[in-house]
């Protein structure tokens, strides 16, 4: 059987969801039997080299680059999965959503305790190379169509595995209570 191709990325996330993916322990060997990785931080491949079957998205969109990457994933992946709270709801980064962007930038570069007094010129980085902050942090499905959502912060390794396994082998997903219980 031809192996399925998977791509992954971390947008406005903490990499915790990727850690959780690695946390499937020895099953990673089973996974490798089933899939090959294309663009992903796991193999450090920076660009797509081919069309993919599954894209795993960690993190929501907080800046213009996140949006570009996400759209690129939609273009190259048959199935897109939002993995984790940040991708699904914006998560922790979305705590800034009720604060004007200007205030956030000023806190980060001018007034915050770690910068106050160290930025005499009062510069807020604005080089054209830098991604531009969005007015708020968006969940992925606000930008592109997302086919599946795996909840959790991060989703349990077992949940990620069960979901991938079910998708790859075209079976019904096994969701024991422990995998979707959050307290």
């Amino acid at each position: 059987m031809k192996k399925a191709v998977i791509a992954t990325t971390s947008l406005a996330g903490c990499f915790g969801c990727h850690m959780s993916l690695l946390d499937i322990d020895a099953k990673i060997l089973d996974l490798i039997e089933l899939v090959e990785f294309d663009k992903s931080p796991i193999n450090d491949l920076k660009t797509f080299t081919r069309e993919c079957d599954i894209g795993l998205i960690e993190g929501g969109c907080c800046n213009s680059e996140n949006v570009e990457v996400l759209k690129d994933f939609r273009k190259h992946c048959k199935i897109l999965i939002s993995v984790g709270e940040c991708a699904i709801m914006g998560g922790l980064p979305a705590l800034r959503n009720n604060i004007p962007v200007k205030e956030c930038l000023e806190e980060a570069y001018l007034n915050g305790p770690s910068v106050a007094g160290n930025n005499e010129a009062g510069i807020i980085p604005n080089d054209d190379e830098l991604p531009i902050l969005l007015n708020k942090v968006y969940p992925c499905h606000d930008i592109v169509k997302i086919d599946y959502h795996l909840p959790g912060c991060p989703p349990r390794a077992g949940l990620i595995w069960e979901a991938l396994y079910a998708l790859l082998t075209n079976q019904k997903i096994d969701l024991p209570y422990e995998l979707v219980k959050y307290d």
Partner: protein
Amino acid sequence: MNNTKIESIVGRYNGDATRLMDILIDIQDEMGCIPDDSIQQLSRILDISKVDIEQTLTFYHFLSKTPRGKFTIYLNNSAVANMFGRKEVAQAFEDAAGCKFGEVTSDGLIGLFNTSCIGMNDQEPAAIINNAVFTRLTPFRAKEIIRDLRKGKSIPELFVAGYGDGNNSSDLIHAVVNNHIMKKGAVLAENYELGISTHRAMEMSPEAVIEEVKKSNIRGRGGAGFPTGLKWEFCRKSPGEKHFVFCNADEGEPGTFKDRVILTEKPDMIFEGMTIGAYAIGAEEGILYLRYEYKYLQDFLEKHLEDLRQKNLLGKNILGNPDFNFDIRIQFGAGAYVCGEESALLESAEGKRGEPRDRPPFPVEKGYLQQPTIVNNVETFCSVVKVIQNGGDWYRTLGTKESSGTKLLSVSGDCRFPGVYEVEWGFSVNDILDMVGTDKDQVQAVQVGGPSGSCIAPNEFSRILCFTDLATGGSLIIIGKHRNLLRDIALNFTDFFIEESCGSCTPCRALTPILRNKLVKIIEGKGVMSDLRDLENWSKIMKTNRCGLGQTAVNPILSSLKNFRDLYTSKIQQDVAYDQGFRMDEAVAEACQATYRGFNY
């Protein structure tokens, strides 16, 4: 300083915590707001927790912890006000006052606030300033009002052009409000003679009164249309220490104003109807729950109650009957549409948040203070007076077979003669349109029954106003072809429900805004076909809401989608399958501005 003031206010209500609404309203009226220290004090005197006071206080639009200005201008924000130039008036108020809506001027003189429909749809744009109503405002008039207030004029001095028609110009009202009675029927007829029906009722047994009401086939005029005789019978049969009669004069459905006209012209008839109700169910206390927007009628109504007591039509041993004592007091609301829902109304009258109760038990079993209670609309009580006067059989000769009697319609919007029309049930929408002076070619839609009702298109104008076809609490808003139906009507109404939801049920609280945002997305041209399906499918869950507000909160969207689908589909992006409305240029604008960066995608 305020200590004695608050003690004296509480004293007026004998320290009764169930009268918290009255207490808070008096504090607000006399002190301009209800500050934290007075909450503390109230909590001590009334022996209820601070939180209990705060949750009532913060629920109502007209109560506030912070000052709202020496003169507080509440400008109606309903759809019809907007149709007649509210935006320009609001702008003029802001320019002249020098503050925005939601704010108070720095000198504390003037506060500008938005409010939901104030029952003046036939004379918009309208505003309430310190309990006085100002109608048909223009930008010029708005500027004039602010200028005069700044000059130190009092509210009565602002009325330069005389008062409104009928009792509106009587000494105890002095309002510029107009009744605009365009057609009279059984209720509004001149031939009403006070007392005849009470006399007649008391010649009958309470059971016979109920039988007569049942025979008349009259159904509630407040919107839900429950058979009145049956309600009274249930209540009479319910055991309880006391029974109560409530008249629902909350009239909050945007576009409805007929109860205001009855309150102005036929107050005795309402009170007589309540008295007959009291006799029928065996009650000694009646409460007229009056929306705060109609506070300008207070002195007038109190005087009428006093006169009725003098005439022995209220009070002890009414008309010499040793077994019948009944009196009525007025309970004000404080700005909350949901309090028109009968169980929320009772909660509110008990001094609490106007949050609808779970039913059953129904008010007829456990109502005010957990005692059997009837709640009826203003117009229902008046109709009962006619039923008792002329008999149930006579009443059934009016209207249609299933819908007997007359109905007061509140007609507003794009027509030459907005106002109150009392017609027999059985008229078609077409008949009404002829009556109110419209050019039918120019009518795009008619909103029947207010935002919670339905928005119908010309192909349905032959439908009949009655309980079995187009049931209505009486509001008809005529919407001309030149109006933007989705933005100016459907969206405005949906925002109204979002504003007025009590927040108890999740679909009402959360799904209404979600569907509203979808509507906005469609209006902005960012919609896709699946949005229409989502609107239809997701809204099904609104049925699970506890009260009528939530159950009908997305009707403005659903009924316009059903009857004006083209308006939606013409705005849908045809070749796009998925779009949640995200636009990069809009999303980065703020950051670009903050960092002096250009952006070109």
